């Protein structure tokens, strides 16, 4: 299933999308595979897997630590491609990869995208690649049938928003706040206002998903209630890995519970 199909189906059912992020290969390739399948089975609609990078400037301490654990476990891009293929062979769910541009650049953008496509990757999120630098990447990704998910922020002005939308497929990623990834206590007014401001530009053409800071069911319902088509949860899931490094059974249990609770918040109000 492709990302756009997933959103269309959810839309028909009146649901928002739960997009679950996890750093791939953390704490080991084997457990990472289990975590991803758990997130998928317990109700996430789309999975976002991070390919670890040594210097993740858009990430807060939780995902930084996960990236380090994963790199120390020997994770490379190929290992993540393999996880994607394995997951897709068992579960029908769209998968997007998140990583920093140097990981593509070093492998060769064309080569990276070909491999990604061969391993059934559906979309890519590259937080340090603004549209100014993305012409070649976007063109090559389109040829491989991979969605290019770009990010906007509360300070993105209408003209730039339109330019970014021209580069975007799959969904538009709204960063909820000014800052890096990581839990925040509440959904701020800034986030709600930003959703309402941006929604008219995306409605009917591309889904709008919101990420950074969300970790409670009430955050998800507030985001979806304000007009977003999906909510992305990352650091809260990654934190469960960090807290249960020596107990994979408890780790999987907690991932299951959190995913279920978060998914329930995307369902239509009875």
């Amino acid at each position: 299933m492709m990302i756009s199909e997933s959103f269309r189906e959810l839309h028909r059912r009146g649901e928002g999308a739960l997009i679950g992020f996890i750093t791939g290969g953390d704490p080991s390739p084997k457990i990472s595979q289990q975590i991803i399948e758990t997130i998928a089975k317990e109700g996430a609609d789309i999975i976002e897997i991070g390919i670890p990078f040594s210097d993740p400037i858009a990430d807060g301490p939780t995902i930084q630590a996960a990236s380090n654990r994963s790199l120390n476990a020997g994770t490379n891009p190929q290992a993540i491609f393999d996880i994607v293929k394995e997951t897709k062979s068992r579960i029908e769910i769209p998968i997007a990869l998140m990583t920093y541009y140097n990981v593509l650049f070093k492998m060769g953008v064309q080569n990276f995208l070909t491999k990604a496509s061969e391993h059934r990757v559906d979309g890519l999120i590259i937080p340090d690649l603004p549209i100014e630098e993305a012409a070649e990447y976007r063109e090559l990704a389109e040829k491989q049938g991979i969605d290019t998910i770009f990010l906007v922020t509360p300070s993105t002005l209408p003209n730039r928003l339109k330019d970014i939308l021209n580069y975007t497929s799959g969904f538009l990623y709204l960063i909820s706040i000014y800052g890096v990834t990581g839990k925040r206590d509440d959904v701020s007014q800034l986030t709600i206002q930003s959703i309402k401001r941006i929604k008219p530009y995306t409605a009917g053409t591309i889904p709008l998903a919101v990420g950074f800071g969300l970790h409670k069911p009430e955050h998800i319902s507030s985001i979806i209630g304000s007009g977003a088509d999906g909510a992305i949860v990352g650091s809260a899931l990654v934190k469960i890995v960090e807290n249960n490094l020596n107990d994979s059974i408890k780790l999987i249990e907690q991932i299951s519970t959190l995913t279920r609770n978060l998914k329930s918040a995307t369902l239509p109000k009875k």
Partner: protein
Amino acid sequence: MSRLDIYPIDGKFGKYGGRFVPETLMPVIKELEESYQKFKNDSNFKKELEYYLRDFVGRPTTLYYASNLTKILGGAKIYLKREDLAHGGAHKINNTLGQALLAKKMGKKRIIAETGAGQHGVATAIACAVLGLKAEVYMGTEDMERQKLNVFRMRMLGAEVHPVDSGSKTLKDSINEALRDWVTNAQTTYYLIGSVVGPHPYPMIVRDFQCIIGHETKEQILAKEGRLPDALVACVGGGSNAIGLFHPFLEDANVKMYGIEAAGESITSGKHAASISAGSEGVFHGMLTYVLQDENGQIQTTSSISAGLDYPGVGPEHSFLKSIGRVQYDAITDKEALEAFIDLTRNEGIVPALESSHALAYSKKLAKKMNKDQIVVVNLSGRGDKDAEVVATQKGAMI
């Protein structure tokens, strides 16, 4: 060939440079570029900066003929551009004053900076103290341990020092942390970057403020020798002192240029910081440039006796100048740098920074191969008091 001083064009030096930053920073770096273009030609801004550079920093710094060293080597005449005499003890202040003044004009009251050895942090703290701005400096805990004196100097000058405990706990991580702060507080905060690195427009802005080194050198050598030098030598970490010296000479085809990186233990040992000499093209800290990385694009940790050169990337303009062959890049080991440090101290009574000692070590080799009527200018980018402890340890002494 087109002129070399017209770059960057649309944020790039050839294919190098660019703006590889999170979307949150895009409006901010565009605002910075617009403000910079406005103020750099503003006569009041220029006058104010000139005033501080002259009366506060003590510019122009001298161009000193190192006659003892020249005699010993028996080759080309060696001149030293004495950036070690600038206030704060290094060329860093040229950039921090320029940018701090720009930040002030832009109405930003909070300044953040990264520092490795602490020299840029101290220079930022000095500039902010004199201009009445608040400075917060990110520094790796590993570096804080190695450079305790500079940590204290920054705090005395009123700067807040934030320890960075992530990654390798050194310069690259302090830049990561400064970028994260900037992403979070971009509306109120000015990021005062310390070298010709990072996303456009930083490599251009820092270069422009450092070009005073080359402009003065040109004037001074013409006054002393009636002609331009045959060669320029400068050390390259990020590369700001080198580009500052080189840039005004780029169109003078007979002036050869040498950028000297840190070979650490040796290039073959893998324990070095020679991004151009031993690295490959990559995208790091907002720019496309030469970086030290593994086969998967993970940035590697570096090693050098000199903390100021201990960085796994290099300014994109250097990558460009390397690609067209205008500047030759080479590397000097810790051991060679240490010898050059002692040499200059004994023979000329000048204690050079370990960073600058890399340039000195290379000039010694170069001058020997040249004729007595030829001229080499070495950028003595900083003074070496800060390195006393490192040198003492190497020499087996305790202080």
